[in-house]
Protein backbone atom coordinates (compact mmCIF):
# COMPACT_ATOMS: atom_id res chain seq x y z
CA UNK A 1 0.00 0.00 0.00
CA UNK A 2 0.99 3.58 -0.56
CA UNK A 3 1.68 5.67 2.56
CA UNK A 4 1.78 9.46 2.67
CA UNK A 5 3.45 11.31 5.55
CA UNK A 6 3.07 15.01 6.29
CA UNK A 7 6.13 16.79 7.64
CA UNK A 8 6.20 20.31 8.95
CA UNK A 9 9.21 22.59 9.30
CA UNK A 10 9.20 24.10 12.77
CA UNK A 11 11.56 25.63 15.28
CA UNK A 12 13.90 23.04 16.82
CA UNK A 13 12.34 21.77 20.04
CA UNK A 14 15.45 22.67 22.06
CA UNK A 15 15.39 26.34 21.17
CA UNK A 16 13.95 28.85 23.59
CA UNK A 17 11.92 31.24 21.50
CA UNK A 18 11.89 35.03 21.60
CA UNK A 19 8.99 37.33 20.87
CA UNK A 20 9.70 40.22 18.48
CA UNK A 21 10.00 43.60 20.24
CA UNK A 22 6.98 44.94 18.33
CA UNK A 23 4.90 41.96 19.49
CA UNK A 24 3.93 41.09 15.93
CA UNK A 25 5.09 37.46 16.12
CA UNK A 26 7.76 35.11 17.36
CA UNK A 27 11.24 35.97 16.06
CA UNK A 28 12.48 33.16 13.82
CA UNK A 29 15.48 34.92 12.27
CA UNK A 30 18.65 32.83 12.67
CA UNK A 31 16.80 30.26 14.71
CA UNK A 32 17.55 26.58 14.27
CA UNK A 33 14.70 24.87 12.41
CA UNK A 34 13.93 21.17 12.21
CA UNK A 35 11.30 18.60 11.36
CA UNK A 36 8.43 18.65 13.86
CA UNK A 37 9.22 15.79 16.29
CA UNK A 38 5.82 14.17 15.81
CA UNK A 39 6.46 14.15 12.05
CA UNK A 40 9.74 12.31 12.64
CA UNK A 41 7.68 9.64 14.36
CA UNK A 42 5.29 9.62 11.37
CA UNK A 43 8.14 9.13 8.90
CA UNK A 44 9.64 6.39 11.06
CA UNK A 45 6.35 4.50 11.19
CA UNK A 46 5.89 4.71 7.43
CA UNK A 47 9.44 3.52 6.80
CA UNK A 48 8.95 0.60 9.19
CA UNK A 49 5.79 -0.37 7.29
CA UNK A 50 7.84 -0.39 4.14
CA UNK A 51 10.62 -2.43 5.71
CA UNK A 52 8.01 -4.92 6.89
CA UNK A 53 6.72 -5.26 3.33
CA UNK A 54 3.35 -3.73 4.21
CA UNK A 55 3.92 -0.42 2.45
CA UNK A 56 5.02 -0.29 -1.18
CA UNK A 57 5.87 3.41 -1.36
CA UNK A 58 6.36 6.24 1.13
CA UNK A 59 5.71 9.80 -0.04
CA UNK A 60 6.56 12.80 2.17
CA UNK A 61 4.61 16.04 1.79
CA UNK A 62 5.28 19.48 3.24
CA UNK A 63 3.52 22.80 2.84
CA UNK A 64 5.66 25.85 3.52
CA UNK A 65 8.46 28.10 2.37
CA UNK A 66 11.31 27.01 0.10
CA UNK A 67 13.40 26.05 3.12
CA UNK A 68 10.89 23.31 4.00
CA UNK A 69 12.70 21.27 1.36
CA UNK A 70 15.39 20.67 4.00
CA UNK A 71 12.87 18.72 6.06
CA UNK A 72 11.69 16.83 2.99
CA UNK A 73 15.30 15.86 2.26
CA UNK A 74 15.54 14.63 5.84
CA UNK A 75 12.43 12.50 5.28
CA UNK A 76 14.03 11.10 2.12
CA UNK A 77 17.21 10.34 4.03
CA UNK A 78 15.17 8.52 6.65
CA UNK A 79 13.67 6.28 3.98
CA UNK A 80 10.84 8.04 2.14
CA UNK A 81 10.86 7.27 -1.61
CA UNK A 82 9.85 10.66 -2.96
CA UNK A 83 8.74 14.05 -1.75
CA UNK A 84 6.19 16.67 -2.67
CA UNK A 85 6.66 20.29 -1.67
CA UNK A 86 3.71 22.67 -1.76
CA UNK A 87 5.58 25.94 -1.74
CA UNK A 88 4.11 29.06 -0.18
CA UNK A 89 5.28 32.00 1.89
CA UNK A 90 1.85 32.50 3.45
CA UNK A 91 1.30 31.89 7.15
CA UNK A 92 -0.29 28.43 6.90
CA UNK A 93 -2.35 27.02 9.74
CA UNK A 94 -3.99 23.64 10.11
CA UNK A 95 -7.01 24.16 7.84
CA UNK A 96 -4.85 25.42 4.98
CA UNK A 97 -2.44 22.52 5.42
CA UNK A 98 -5.34 20.06 5.57
CA UNK A 99 -6.83 21.48 2.37
CA UNK A 100 -3.55 21.08 0.50
CA UNK A 101 -3.07 17.59 1.91
CA UNK A 102 -6.63 16.64 0.92
CA UNK A 103 -5.83 17.64 -2.64
CA UNK A 104 -2.71 15.47 -2.56
CA UNK A 105 -4.74 12.57 -1.15
CA UNK A 106 -7.23 12.96 -3.98
CA UNK A 107 -4.45 12.73 -6.55
CA UNK A 108 -2.25 10.11 -4.93
CA UNK A 109 -4.96 7.90 -3.37
CA UNK A 110 -2.80 6.56 -0.52
CA UNK A 111 -4.24 3.79 1.67
CA UNK A 112 -2.69 5.37 4.73
CA UNK A 113 -1.72 8.91 5.63
CA UNK A 114 0.36 9.53 8.76
CA UNK A 115 0.68 12.96 10.38
CA UNK A 116 2.02 14.21 13.69
CA UNK A 117 -0.56 14.77 16.41
CA UNK A 118 0.61 18.32 16.97
CA UNK A 119 2.99 20.86 15.51
CA UNK A 120 5.16 22.18 18.35
CA UNK A 121 5.01 25.76 17.06
CA UNK A 122 1.26 26.37 16.81
CA UNK A 123 0.39 23.56 19.23
CA UNK A 124 -2.82 23.27 17.20
CA UNK A 125 -3.45 19.51 17.12
CA UNK A 126 -5.99 19.76 14.27
CA UNK A 127 -4.58 18.94 10.84
CA UNK A 128 -4.98 15.15 10.83
CA UNK A 129 -8.56 15.36 12.09
CA UNK A 130 -9.34 18.03 9.48
CA UNK A 131 -7.79 16.00 6.71
CA UNK A 132 -9.84 12.97 7.77
CA UNK A 133 -13.04 15.01 7.68
CA UNK A 134 -12.23 16.63 4.31
CA UNK A 135 -11.43 13.28 2.69
CA UNK A 136 -14.24 11.35 4.38
CA UNK A 137 -11.77 8.93 5.93
CA UNK A 138 -11.66 7.60 9.49
CA UNK A 139 -9.03 8.84 11.91
CA UNK A 140 -6.85 7.22 14.53
CA UNK A 141 -5.40 10.14 16.46
CA UNK A 142 -2.67 10.07 19.15
CA UNK A 143 -1.58 6.60 18.05
CA UNK A 144 0.83 4.57 20.16
CA UNK A 145 0.52 1.40 18.02
CA UNK A 146 -0.94 0.58 14.60
CA UNK A 147 -1.53 -2.75 12.89
CA UNK A 148 -2.86 -3.46 9.41
CA UNK A 149 -5.49 -6.21 9.55
CA UNK A 150 -6.67 -6.98 6.01
CA UNK A 151 -8.68 -4.01 4.82
CA UNK A 152 -8.76 -2.32 8.20
CA UNK A 153 -6.32 -0.74 10.60
CA UNK A 154 -6.22 -1.31 14.33
CA UNK A 155 -5.02 1.72 16.26
CA UNK A 156 -4.19 1.99 19.95
CA UNK A 157 -4.79 5.60 20.99
CA UNK A 158 -3.38 7.53 23.96
CA UNK A 159 -6.46 9.12 25.53
CA UNK A 160 -6.85 11.08 28.76
CA UNK A 161 -8.08 8.07 30.70
CA UNK A 162 -5.56 5.54 29.37
CA UNK A 163 -5.52 3.62 26.09
CA UNK A 164 -8.33 3.06 23.60
CA UNK A 165 -8.27 0.63 20.67
CA UNK A 166 -10.30 1.36 17.55
CA UNK A 167 -10.62 -0.30 14.19
CA UNK A 168 -10.62 1.90 11.09
CA UNK A 169 -11.68 0.98 7.60
CA UNK A 170 -8.81 1.64 5.17
CA UNK A 171 -8.01 4.08 3.65
CA UNK A 172 -7.44 5.94 6.92
CA UNK A 173 -5.62 8.82 8.62
CA UNK A 174 -3.34 8.33 11.63
CA UNK A 175 -1.72 10.93 13.88
CA UNK A 176 1.30 9.96 15.96
CA UNK A 177 1.86 10.15 19.70
CA UNK A 178 5.22 9.94 21.43
CA UNK A 179 5.17 6.23 22.18
CA UNK A 180 4.46 5.02 18.61
CA UNK A 181 8.16 4.44 17.93
CA UNK A 182 11.60 5.85 18.48
CA UNK A 183 12.76 7.54 15.29
CA UNK A 184 16.14 6.63 13.85
CA UNK A 185 18.82 9.14 12.90
CA UNK A 186 19.67 9.64 9.24
CA UNK A 187 23.05 8.12 8.32
CA UNK A 188 25.50 10.07 6.21
CA UNK A 189 25.33 7.75 3.13
CA UNK A 190 21.51 8.00 3.26
CA UNK A 191 21.71 11.77 3.44
CA UNK A 192 23.87 11.69 0.30
CA UNK A 193 21.48 9.31 -1.45
CA UNK A 194 18.49 11.46 -0.51
CA UNK A 195 19.85 14.29 -2.65
CA UNK A 196 19.09 12.20 -5.71
CA UNK A 197 15.60 11.12 -4.73
CA UNK A 198 12.71 12.87 -6.53
CA UNK A 199 11.35 16.05 -4.94
CA UNK A 200 8.52 17.74 -6.80
CA UNK A 201 7.54 21.35 -6.11
CA UNK A 202 4.09 22.78 -6.70
CA UNK A 203 2.15 25.85 -5.65
CA UNK A 204 -1.23 26.10 -3.94
CA UNK A 205 -2.44 28.20 -6.90
CA UNK A 206 -1.82 25.51 -9.48
CA UNK A 207 -3.39 22.96 -7.15
CA UNK A 208 -6.42 25.19 -6.73
CA UNK A 209 -6.29 25.33 -2.92
CA UNK A 210 -6.36 28.24 -0.48
CA UNK A 211 -3.74 27.74 2.24
CA UNK A 212 -3.37 31.14 3.94
CA UNK A 213 -4.61 31.22 7.53
CA UNK A 214 -8.05 32.66 8.12
CA UNK A 215 -7.05 33.71 11.62
CA UNK A 216 -5.64 37.17 12.14
CA UNK A 217 -2.62 37.21 14.41
CA UNK A 218 -3.32 40.35 16.43
CA UNK A 219 -0.29 40.19 18.70
CA UNK A 220 2.17 37.85 20.38
CA UNK A 221 3.44 38.42 23.88
CA UNK A 222 5.85 36.67 26.18
CA UNK A 223 4.10 34.83 29.01
CA UNK A 224 4.11 36.19 32.54
CA UNK A 225 7.46 35.20 34.02
CA UNK A 226 7.44 33.21 37.21
CA UNK A 227 9.56 34.65 39.95
CA UNK A 228 12.22 32.15 40.94
CA UNK A 229 11.82 31.22 44.59
CA UNK A 230 14.16 30.16 47.33
CA UNK A 231 16.22 27.11 48.09
CA UNK A 232 15.24 25.56 51.37
CA UNK A 233 17.83 23.80 53.48
CA UNK A 234 15.78 20.92 54.85
CA UNK A 235 12.52 19.02 54.68
CA UNK A 236 11.48 20.68 57.96
CA UNK A 237 11.95 24.12 56.45
CA UNK A 238 10.00 23.08 53.34
CA UNK A 239 7.04 21.80 55.36
CA UNK A 240 7.09 24.94 57.49
CA UNK A 241 7.06 27.22 54.42
CA UNK A 242 4.26 25.25 52.76
CA UNK A 243 2.18 25.52 55.93
CA UNK A 244 2.90 29.01 57.16
CA UNK A 245 4.12 31.03 54.18
CA UNK A 246 2.42 29.56 51.10
CA UNK A 247 -0.47 28.16 53.15
CA UNK A 248 -1.10 25.40 50.63
CA UNK A 249 -1.10 22.56 53.18
CA UNK A 250 -2.51 22.38 56.66
Amino acid at each position, binding site marked *: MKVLVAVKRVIDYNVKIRVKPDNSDVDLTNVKMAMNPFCEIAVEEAVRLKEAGTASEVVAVSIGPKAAQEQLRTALALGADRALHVQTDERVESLGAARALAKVVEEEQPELMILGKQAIDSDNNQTGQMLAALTGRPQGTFASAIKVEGDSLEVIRE*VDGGLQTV*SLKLPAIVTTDLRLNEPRYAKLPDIMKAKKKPLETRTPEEMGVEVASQLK*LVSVEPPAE*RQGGVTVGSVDELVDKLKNE*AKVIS
Partner: protein
Amino acid sequence: MSILVLAEHHDGHLAEGTAHVVAAARQIAEHSGADIDVLVAGEGVAAIAEAAAGLEGVARVRVADHAVYGHQLAEPLGDLLVALADDYSHVLAAGSTTGKNALPRLAALKGTQQISEIIAVVSADTFKRPVYAGNAIATVQSADALKVITVRPTAFDAVAEGGSASVEAVDTVVDNDLSSFIDEKLAQSDRPELGSAKVVVSGGRGMGNGENFKLLDGVADKLGAAIGASRAAVDAGFVPNDMQVGQTGKIVAPDLYIAVGISGAIQHMAGMKDSKIIVAINKDEEAPIFQVADYGLVGDLFELVPELEKKL
Protein backbone atom coordinates in the same frame (compact mmCIF):
# COMPACT_ATOMS: atom_id res chain seq x y z
CA MET B 1 -27.27 33.04 17.85
CA SER B 2 -26.41 30.71 20.69
CA ILE B 3 -23.20 29.12 21.89
CA LEU B 4 -22.87 25.34 21.99
CA VAL B 5 -20.67 23.56 24.54
CA LEU B 6 -19.87 19.89 23.94
CA ALA B 7 -20.11 18.14 27.31
CA GLU B 8 -17.15 16.04 28.39
CA HIS B 9 -18.13 12.81 30.11
CA HIS B 10 -16.62 9.49 31.06
CA ASP B 11 -17.99 6.39 32.75
CA GLY B 12 -21.46 7.84 33.13
CA HIS B 13 -20.26 11.03 34.83
CA LEU B 14 -20.10 14.59 33.63
CA ALA B 15 -16.40 15.50 33.71
CA GLU B 16 -15.21 18.53 35.68
CA GLY B 17 -13.86 20.14 32.54
CA THR B 18 -17.35 20.94 31.26
CA ALA B 19 -18.02 23.47 34.03
CA HIS B 20 -14.81 25.26 33.03
CA VAL B 21 -15.76 25.32 29.36
CA VAL B 22 -19.19 26.72 30.24
CA ALA B 23 -17.33 29.46 32.15
CA ALA B 24 -15.47 30.38 28.95
CA ALA B 25 -18.77 30.31 27.05
CA ARG B 26 -20.27 32.73 29.59
CA GLN B 27 -17.43 35.16 29.00
CA ILE B 28 -18.15 35.05 25.26
CA ALA B 29 -21.85 35.48 25.99
CA GLU B 30 -21.08 38.66 27.92
CA HIS B 31 -19.89 40.14 24.63
CA SER B 32 -22.46 38.59 22.30
CA GLY B 33 -25.51 38.27 24.54
CA ALA B 34 -26.02 34.69 23.42
CA ASP B 35 -27.65 31.77 25.25
CA ILE B 36 -25.57 28.75 26.10
CA ASP B 37 -26.60 25.22 25.10
CA VAL B 38 -24.77 22.11 26.21
CA LEU B 39 -24.71 19.03 23.97
CA VAL B 40 -24.46 15.65 25.66
CA ALA B 41 -23.73 12.94 23.10
CA GLY B 42 -23.37 9.30 24.04
CA GLU B 43 -25.32 6.20 24.89
CA GLY B 44 -27.34 6.02 28.10
CA VAL B 45 -26.48 9.57 29.09
CA ALA B 46 -29.67 10.76 30.82
CA ALA B 47 -27.95 11.22 34.18
CA ILE B 48 -25.12 13.17 32.56
CA ALA B 49 -27.65 15.46 30.89
CA GLU B 50 -29.28 16.09 34.30
CA ALA B 51 -25.91 17.02 35.76
CA ALA B 52 -25.20 19.38 32.84
CA ALA B 53 -28.61 21.03 33.33
CA GLY B 54 -27.48 22.00 36.81
CA LEU B 55 -24.54 24.08 35.62
CA GLU B 56 -25.05 27.77 36.13
CA GLY B 57 -25.53 29.79 32.96
CA VAL B 58 -26.75 26.95 30.77
CA ALA B 59 -30.09 27.64 29.05
CA ARG B 60 -30.71 24.28 27.43
CA VAL B 61 -29.17 20.83 27.39
CA ARG B 62 -29.51 18.89 24.16
CA VAL B 63 -29.15 15.14 24.44
CA ALA B 64 -28.14 12.88 21.57
CA ASP B 65 -28.56 9.45 23.13
CA HIS B 66 -27.86 6.67 20.68
CA ALA B 67 -25.55 3.68 20.25
CA VAL B 68 -23.72 5.40 17.36
CA TYR B 69 -22.45 8.02 19.85
CA GLY B 70 -21.34 5.43 22.39
CA HIS B 71 -17.58 5.73 23.08
CA GLN B 72 -17.81 9.23 21.52
CA LEU B 73 -15.86 8.29 18.41
CA ALA B 74 -14.75 11.32 16.40
CA GLU B 75 -16.47 10.45 13.11
CA PRO B 76 -20.09 10.34 14.37
CA LEU B 77 -19.46 13.11 16.91
CA GLY B 78 -18.09 15.36 14.18
CA ASP B 79 -21.05 14.66 11.91
CA LEU B 80 -23.52 15.34 14.72
CA LEU B 81 -21.86 18.68 15.43
CA VAL B 82 -22.00 19.56 11.74
CA ALA B 83 -25.73 18.76 11.71
CA LEU B 84 -26.35 21.07 14.69
CA ALA B 85 -23.84 23.84 14.03
CA ASP B 86 -26.03 26.11 11.91
CA ASP B 87 -27.87 27.25 15.04
CA TYR B 88 -24.67 28.50 16.66
CA SER B 89 -22.10 31.28 16.50
CA HIS B 90 -19.57 29.36 18.62
CA VAL B 91 -18.97 25.69 19.35
CA LEU B 92 -16.71 24.97 22.34
CA ALA B 93 -15.22 21.86 23.89
CA ALA B 94 -12.55 21.09 26.45
CA GLY B 95 -9.00 20.70 25.15
CA SER B 96 -9.23 17.03 26.16
CA THR B 97 -8.44 14.09 23.93
CA THR B 98 -12.18 13.88 23.14
CA GLY B 99 -12.50 17.56 22.26
CA LYS B 100 -9.27 17.56 20.28
CA ASN B 101 -10.42 14.49 18.39
CA ALA B 102 -13.84 15.73 17.30
CA LEU B 103 -13.82 19.51 16.98
CA PRO B 104 -11.36 19.88 14.08
CA ARG B 105 -13.69 17.69 12.00
CA LEU B 106 -16.50 20.18 12.54
CA ALA B 107 -14.18 23.09 11.80
CA ALA B 108 -12.90 21.55 8.56
CA LEU B 109 -16.34 20.68 7.25
CA LYS B 110 -17.54 24.22 8.02
CA GLY B 111 -14.45 25.83 6.48
CA THR B 112 -13.42 27.34 9.82
CA GLN B 113 -9.91 27.63 11.25
CA GLN B 114 -10.30 26.18 14.75
CA ILE B 115 -8.82 28.09 17.69
CA SER B 116 -7.15 25.58 20.01
CA GLU B 117 -6.87 25.76 23.80
CA ILE B 118 -7.87 29.32 24.51
CA ILE B 119 -6.82 30.72 27.89
CA ALA B 120 -8.68 34.06 27.70
CA VAL B 121 -11.64 35.63 25.96
CA VAL B 122 -10.92 39.15 24.68
CA SER B 123 -14.18 39.56 22.77
CA ALA B 124 -16.64 37.35 20.90
CA ASP B 125 -14.16 36.93 18.04
CA THR B 126 -10.76 37.47 19.70
CA PHE B 127 -9.00 35.06 22.04
CA LYS B 128 -5.65 34.42 23.70
CA ARG B 129 -3.92 31.07 23.39
CA PRO B 130 -0.47 29.72 24.24
CA VAL B 131 1.83 28.73 21.38
CA TYR B 132 5.38 27.32 21.32
CA ALA B 133 4.87 25.29 24.51
CA GLY B 134 3.48 28.33 26.29
CA ASN B 135 6.58 30.40 25.64
CA ALA B 136 4.45 32.93 23.79
CA ILE B 137 0.83 33.96 24.11
CA ALA B 138 -0.89 34.74 20.81
CA THR B 139 -3.95 36.93 20.49
CA VAL B 140 -5.95 35.77 17.47
CA GLN B 141 -9.05 37.08 15.80
CA SER B 142 -11.42 34.99 13.71
CA ALA B 143 -13.59 36.36 10.93
CA ASP B 144 -15.18 32.96 10.31
CA ALA B 145 -18.98 32.89 10.69
CA LEU B 146 -18.71 29.91 13.03
CA LYS B 147 -16.07 29.93 15.73
CA VAL B 148 -14.82 26.48 16.69
CA ILE B 149 -12.83 26.60 19.90
CA THR B 150 -11.21 24.25 22.39
CA VAL B 151 -10.73 25.60 25.88
CA ARG B 152 -7.94 24.98 28.36
CA PRO B 153 -10.02 24.13 31.45
CA THR B 154 -7.40 25.26 33.99
CA ALA B 155 -7.57 28.82 32.62
CA PHE B 156 -11.23 29.36 33.54
CA ASP B 157 -12.82 28.95 36.98
CA ALA B 158 -15.65 26.43 36.89
CA VAL B 159 -19.21 27.77 36.97
CA ALA B 160 -21.20 26.86 40.05
CA GLU B 161 -24.02 24.37 40.24
CA GLY B 162 -27.58 25.43 40.90
CA GLY B 163 -28.79 26.08 37.38
CA SER B 164 -31.94 24.52 35.99
CA ALA B 165 -31.67 24.31 32.23
CA SER B 166 -34.29 22.59 30.10
CA VAL B 167 -33.35 19.19 28.70
CA GLU B 168 -34.34 18.30 25.15
CA ALA B 169 -33.66 15.26 23.02
CA VAL B 170 -31.84 15.61 19.72
CA ASP B 171 -33.08 12.99 17.30
CA THR B 172 -30.33 13.39 14.70
CA VAL B 173 -28.75 9.99 14.16
CA VAL B 174 -25.71 9.82 11.89
CA ASP B 175 -24.17 6.73 10.27
CA ASN B 176 -20.72 5.48 11.06
CA ASP B 177 -19.28 2.56 9.16
CA LEU B 178 -15.77 4.02 9.10
CA SER B 179 -14.60 3.37 12.64
CA SER B 180 -15.48 1.05 15.47
CA PHE B 181 -14.54 0.76 19.11
CA ILE B 182 -12.64 -2.37 20.12
CA ASP B 183 -11.66 -1.86 23.75
CA GLU B 184 -10.06 0.43 26.26
CA LYS B 185 -7.71 0.12 29.18
CA LEU B 186 -8.52 2.90 31.57
CA ALA B 187 -6.33 3.73 34.51
CA GLN B 188 -7.95 2.72 37.80
CA SER B 189 -7.18 5.06 40.63
CA ASP B 190 -8.76 6.29 43.84
CA ARG B 191 -6.81 9.49 43.54
CA PRO B 192 -8.27 12.77 42.26
CA GLU B 193 -8.22 13.43 38.54
CA LEU B 194 -4.87 14.87 37.43
CA GLY B 195 -6.38 17.82 35.55
CA SER B 196 -8.43 19.07 38.50
CA ALA B 197 -6.50 17.94 41.61
CA LYS B 198 -5.56 20.61 44.17
CA VAL B 199 -2.19 18.96 44.73
CA VAL B 200 -0.10 17.08 42.18
CA VAL B 201 3.07 15.09 42.93
CA SER B 202 5.03 14.19 39.78
CA GLY B 203 8.00 11.95 39.24
CA GLY B 204 10.57 11.99 36.46
CA ARG B 205 13.44 9.92 35.16
CA GLY B 206 15.17 10.44 38.51
CA MET B 207 12.69 7.98 40.06
CA GLY B 208 14.78 5.29 38.40
CA ASN B 209 12.04 2.71 37.84
CA GLY B 210 8.32 2.07 38.15
CA GLU B 211 8.64 0.39 41.52
CA ASN B 212 10.18 3.53 43.01
CA PHE B 213 7.12 5.55 42.00
CA LYS B 214 5.49 3.95 45.05
CA LEU B 215 7.62 6.36 47.10
CA LEU B 216 5.36 9.13 45.84
CA ASP B 217 2.22 7.32 47.01
CA GLY B 218 2.88 8.08 50.65
CA VAL B 219 3.25 11.81 50.04
CA ALA B 220 0.25 11.82 47.70
CA ASP B 221 -1.87 9.97 50.29
CA LYS B 222 -1.11 12.56 52.95
CA LEU B 223 -1.86 15.47 50.63
CA GLY B 224 -4.83 13.98 48.76
CA ALA B 225 -2.80 14.49 45.62
CA ALA B 226 -2.91 13.16 42.08
CA ILE B 227 0.29 11.63 40.71
CA GLY B 228 1.82 12.83 37.45
CA ALA B 229 5.00 12.18 35.52
CA SER B 230 7.40 13.56 32.97
CA ARG B 231 7.58 12.20 29.45
CA ALA B 232 10.88 10.49 30.26
CA ALA B 233 9.20 8.52 33.06
CA VAL B 234 6.38 7.47 30.72
CA ASP B 235 8.69 6.59 27.83
CA ALA B 236 10.81 4.46 30.14
CA GLY B 237 7.68 2.53 31.08
CA PHE B 238 7.72 3.56 34.78
CA VAL B 239 4.08 4.71 34.58
CA PRO B 240 1.26 4.82 31.99
CA ASN B 241 0.80 7.55 29.38
CA ASP B 242 -2.22 9.14 31.01
CA MET B 243 0.08 10.50 33.75
CA GLN B 244 2.23 12.61 31.43
CA VAL B 245 2.18 16.31 32.27
CA GLY B 246 3.37 18.78 29.65
CA GLN B 247 3.08 20.47 26.28
CA THR B 248 1.90 17.28 24.65
CA GLY B 249 0.42 15.64 27.75
CA LYS B 250 -1.91 17.00 30.40
CA ILE B 251 -2.05 20.58 31.57
CA VAL B 252 -2.33 21.02 35.32
CA ALA B 253 -2.55 24.10 37.53
CA PRO B 254 -2.97 22.89 41.12
CA ASP B 255 -2.40 24.91 44.28
CA LEU B 256 0.69 22.82 44.90
CA TYR B 257 2.87 20.96 42.37
CA ILE B 258 5.76 18.87 43.65
CA ALA B 259 8.27 17.85 40.96
CA VAL B 260 10.51 14.98 42.04
CA GLY B 261 13.51 13.95 39.92
CA ILE B 262 12.32 16.11 37.02
CA SER B 263 14.85 18.40 35.30
CA GLY B 264 12.33 20.97 34.01
CA ALA B 265 12.45 20.81 30.21
CA ILE B 266 10.30 23.48 28.52
CA GLN B 267 7.93 20.76 27.33
CA HIS B 268 7.32 19.68 30.91
CA MET B 269 7.02 23.21 32.28
CA ALA B 270 4.41 24.02 29.63
CA GLY B 271 2.11 21.66 31.48
CA MET B 272 2.60 22.85 35.08
CA LYS B 273 4.02 26.36 35.28
CA ASP B 274 0.63 27.89 36.04
CA SER B 275 0.54 26.00 39.33
CA LYS B 276 0.19 28.31 42.33
CA ILE B 277 3.12 26.93 44.28
CA ILE B 278 5.85 24.76 42.77
CA VAL B 279 8.22 22.63 44.81
CA ALA B 280 11.19 20.91 43.18
CA ILE B 281 13.22 18.08 44.64
CA ASN B 282 16.33 17.38 42.58
CA LYS B 283 19.93 16.45 43.31
CA ASP B 284 21.25 18.78 40.60
CA GLU B 285 21.17 22.35 41.83
CA GLU B 286 21.56 23.57 38.22
CA ALA B 287 18.37 21.85 37.07
CA PRO B 288 16.11 24.34 35.22
CA ILE B 289 13.12 23.33 37.32
CA PHE B 290 14.61 25.44 40.15
CA GLN B 291 14.11 28.57 38.04
CA VAL B 292 10.35 28.21 38.34
CA ALA B 293 10.17 26.56 41.75
CA ASP B 294 8.95 28.62 44.71
CA TYR B 295 10.72 26.20 47.03
CA GLY B 296 13.66 24.14 45.87
CA LEU B 297 15.15 21.27 47.82
CA VAL B 298 18.52 20.05 46.56
CA GLY B 299 19.36 16.47 47.40
CA ASP B 300 18.70 12.80 46.85
CA LEU B 301 15.03 12.10 46.40
CA PHE B 302 15.41 8.64 47.90
CA GLU B 303 16.21 10.28 51.24
CA LEU B 304 14.10 13.41 50.94
CA VAL B 305 10.79 11.92 49.78
CA PRO B 306 10.46 9.40 52.65
CA GLU B 307 11.39 12.15 55.09
CA LEU B 308 8.80 14.46 53.57
CA GLU B 309 6.15 11.79 53.91
CA LYS B 310 7.01 11.35 57.57
CA LYS B 311 6.92 15.05 58.35
CA LEU B 312 3.70 15.95 56.59
